[in-house]
């Protein structure tokens, strides 16, 4: 029973319930820190002289807190590498760049970008999290971060009420919005206790659209305009061209035109133009008519 209470108080800062803003919150948080201090050597932040005044109350507190599993040791570092085409220099990111980790209900961590171009999340809770990076000018894809207690040999991850240091398994996956949460994407990295993952932007955000203004060159490039211009050139240019030809070439050209199947008097175009519906109805072919005409 005592262990259960302790477990609850140890976890209560994680499952933060906003509707019970009890003053207990701060103290339980301190207990949580106490655990980390007592059991994990990996804590960089709390020096060995943790409880310098020998306070019996603190010892009592520490002695039952030691029964808890280590749930607050997981540390995730996200670093933003230089990814040349999009973001050649991550140091150019503004100070407002930040990353959020959406955990189980009540857990929403937010951390700003550090001088080393990283985001540091410490004391992660067990559970699955949605990781998102926000930058003003760059888009990042979402990731999934799973924190779980590493399985022991017999596969038992349950707490047995004894002092035991368990490692935390941190897995980072890429995830896609709109998919089921059980549908895991490609795994990016996996590790215990402290994991570093590199995440680069997927693209630059384009905020503006240019208005389609008046563009002479663009207009000239349009095929409709080109066709029109060509026909204008033909209509106005041909007579000039014909006039300026020397008589021999002109005669030759005219001869050629007469012979040409399309434009000559026997050409297809002329035939269509001079199509005689009545004679066709009468069953006379063009050839017979023309031959009779010549007779």
């Amino acid at each position, binding site marked *: 029973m005592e262990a259960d209470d302790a477990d609850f108080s140890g976890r209560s800062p994680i499952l933060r319930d906003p509707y019970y803003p009890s003053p207990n919150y701060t103290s339980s948080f301190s207990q949580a820190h106490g655990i980390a201090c007592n059991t994990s050597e990996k804590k960089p*932040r709390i*020096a060995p002289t943790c409880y*310098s005044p020998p306070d019996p109350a603190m010892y009592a507190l520490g002695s039952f807190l030691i029964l808890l599993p280590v749930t607050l040791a997981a540390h995730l570092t996200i670093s933003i590498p230089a990814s040349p085409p999009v973001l050649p220099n991550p140091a150019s990111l503004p100070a*407002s760049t930040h990353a959020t980790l959406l955990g189980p209900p009540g857990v929403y961590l937010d951390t*700003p970008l550090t001088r080393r171009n990283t985001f540091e999340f410490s004391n992660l809770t067990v559970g699955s999290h949605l990781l998102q990076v926000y930058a003003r000018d760059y888009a990042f894809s979402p990731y999934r971060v799973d924190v779980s207690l590493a399985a022991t040999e017999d596969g038992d991850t349950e707490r047995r009420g004894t002092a035991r240091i368990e490692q935390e398994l941190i897995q980072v996956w890429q995830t896609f919005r709109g998919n089921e949460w059980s549908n895991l994407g490609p795994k990016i990295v996996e590790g215990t206790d402290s994991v570093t993952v590199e995440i680069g932007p997927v693209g630059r955000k384009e905020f503006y659209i240019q208005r389609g203004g008046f563009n002479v060159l663009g207009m000239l490039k349009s095929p409709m305009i080109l066709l029109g211009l060509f026909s204008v050139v033909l209509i106005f240019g041909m007579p000039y061209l014909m006039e300026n030809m020397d008589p021999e070439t002109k005669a030759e050209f005219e001869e050629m035109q007469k012979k040409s199947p399309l434009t000559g008097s026997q050409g297809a175009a002329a035939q269509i133009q001079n199509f005689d519906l009545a004679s066709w109805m009468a069953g006379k072919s063009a050839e017979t008519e023309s031959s009779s005409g010549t007779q």
Partner: protein
Amino acid sequence: MLSTLLTAASLLLVPTLAVFADEAWNVDYHFALLGAPKEETSFFHQPNPSSRASLIYTLSEQHALGAVNPRDGSLVWRQLLSSDGIAYRNSFLRAGEGQDVVISGVGHEVAAWSAADGRLVWSLSTEGPLEDVEILELSDGKETAGAKDAIALSSGANPTVQRIDGASGAVKWQFIIDGSDAPYQLSASSTQIFAILIHKTILGYVKLRVVVLDRVTGHKVDEYSLSSENELSTTENIVSVGANSASPMIAWTDSLYTTLKVNVVGMKSMQSFDIASHDDSPIEHVKVHAPYHVNSLSHFLVHYQTATSHWADVFHINLKNGKVEKAYSLPKLAGRGAFSTSTSDANVYFTRVTRDEITTVSSASHGVLGRWPLNTFGVVAGIGEQVEPIHAASEVSVKGDTVSAIRTTILLSTGDWVMLRDGKGIWNRPEMLASTMVVTFALPADAAALVQQLEVEAHSNPVAAYAHRVQRHLADLQRLPSIIVSLPQQIVKGFLGTSADDLTASDTFGFRQVIVCATREGRLVALDAGSPDKIVWNVNVADLQPGQSWEPYLASRIAGVVEVSSRAGAGIQYNATNGQPLAERLPVVPEGPQVPSSQVVLYTVHDGTLEASYNRTPAWAFTPMHGERLIDMVPRPVNDPVASIGKVLGDRRVLYKYLDSNIALLVTAQDSMGTANIYVLSTVSGAIIYSNVHTGVDLTIPIASIMSENWFAYSFTNEASDEASKGHQLVVGELFESLVPDDRGMMGATTNFSGMQTATEPFVLTQTYQIPEVISKLAVTRTRQGITSRQLLAVLPDSNGIVGIPYGAVDPRRPVNRDPTKDEQAEGLVRYTAVLEFDPKWFLNHQREIVGVKNVFTSPALIESTSLVFAYGLDIFGTRLSPSFSFDILGKDFNKLQMLATVAALAVATFIVAPLVMRKQVDQRWRFL
């Protein structure tokens, strides 16, 4: 990936509404604010120790930490240290001499920030709330090279002193202070650290307990109490506990401000000085100004302020024997004064800012080294209001015996934060707007006057109306000369600019509305939406005592007049153009919780029950189920014009909208189950006409909701489950009278409709979209007639932006699992996709970063296509939106020059071609005849 592609493809089909490159930065405006800077946490500091250029750092009342460029007042970087709006009692900001970091302490978090770019260097959370943070200026060889260590004092169950490594943020040692005394402050000397605690005696007096710690080991060396006898009754009388000055000291007064007691920290004795009374009015407060550098002279200044005047005494501390001597006095001057301390090498300078001058004296003698008269602070204030300095920070450069240049930042009583260089105003940041509570739009009085006059003419008999009109025209004639003078300029502008630019001449489009903001400090501040760079007027309307709050309500029922009222108080009307009150002062009435009310129905919350009353008679009550609590209630806006009562389908048939002006969206939460309940209520009968439940909702993250026309929208964050993926969701629901086209269902036959008699339930279509991030507030664009399609405005706190989602993109009628039919395509419906990505082009703020937005206010312009948008909270952001494009105004895309060029080219062509045509015609005549 596929779904993302699909979304991208679907977005191409929706008409793209976006920020045009030529409108961005011109149409929109933005004040990147910090909030009122606090005196103790505002200072000049060199971000790069090797360069002399300094920035102004401040940690404001709103817990916004930022660096401001002293040259132009622009924000260099900013970090919001309390995003959830919790007001912490204490906040600290320290900068070590020659350090490239600033160290902040807010709530439970000590953090070091890179001074040049605002990036985090390290952060550390403490068990209890922070009571003090200091930097150990004097090195003891235990630090990491180049970084000075910090010490932090936290209270709570185990009051703790911690020494924090300046480079890594690791705790070097921590000492838990025993006893129940409240930690107060920290102080340090070269070998020792002093933790000062407040000990309450049985008689209710306060004693100061000093715990002395070893700097290197953190072990307790000594402990003593300062016997303040019976004179110290509250901590408010402790005027100063110095920290890093050459000789830290503690000073306090008795409650009547007759004696000042000073103790040099580390000494067990104290000295007392009589406070001379210069004035009939009692002293209001005493402040101590001491240099914050270890190697400066150990001089300090005590500033006495009464209601009408102020004066100061300068004291010197003898470092050898710890004796304090009064050196000289600065004479009494009328009004409020602000003192600031600056150092140059070891010398200390005190700068005094009064209403009409700035003077600088050396701490060693009372000779004035520099004096700059002040005509005005260059800020807008109420009529007859005396602008007073509240506090100041200065940077002096001394050449020989005179101060050659001085830069002073002053927080003024109007809420402006100004920068003066040698007594001349350089810039002015309207920080009072950071505490805006409510906002309203009003037409300027001159525009409203014409409307009123026309109404007078319309409602009187023809003869009187004619006489009135003649009189009005005669009055207008007087303005003729000025119009003629400005005519050429206007013509040039008319040719070169576009019509949308032409805001200054006359406000035909209703863009030049007055935006009136009521601030937490009891002031009304007005901006002009047409030229928002300057404050139009700024008046104090509520005389708030310290600690008193008001709940303003703003409205503009008559054009040209703004009415402000505090809860339950009678309103006072102000002229919207110049801020002149049209009645006397506003009574401030203590208030209770308030729920947004329409004019007819008044809502109150009693024990978790929502009660509605019409004309003060109770109508109905809504009691949520056991364990549920009300989160939010959004009634349909009072002024919500709808152009069409139906939706025209692609085949010209009509779906009738369920248009009831008395409906409201109610959101409740059940914390034990983690569920959010959504209800649509009829506010006439109190009946629930639609309800929905969402499970697995993270109730610590805001649930935003909005109701307009015949649709509602809300967003929430949910945990992964079988039905839903983990993340944020936006639900849009639309209410119809019937889902059969051309059929009005139950209401078809009736001409009149009463919510009390007939219980008609609408048919509701809802659709859920997964969205990439949290929405903290939803709003909707409003236009004059409601013809223009609407845009859903969502505040994104994580992206620091506001996104305008076209309604078509979230229409619940988007076909699911099939492609739209021809008719649906004609309506503009595209296939439903579960994911709604926010296109960067939808961001109204584009590259601006809007931080801390609490609410978005929209108002129709005079032309139908445009809606004015104003977002407030910490930052102020405003823009104009045309959700259906600018169909009734020539926008920037209309190129006047090009049109003129075309006309000119045609004219030239006509002139050239005319003789040719003439000749040809003449030739033809000759040929035929």
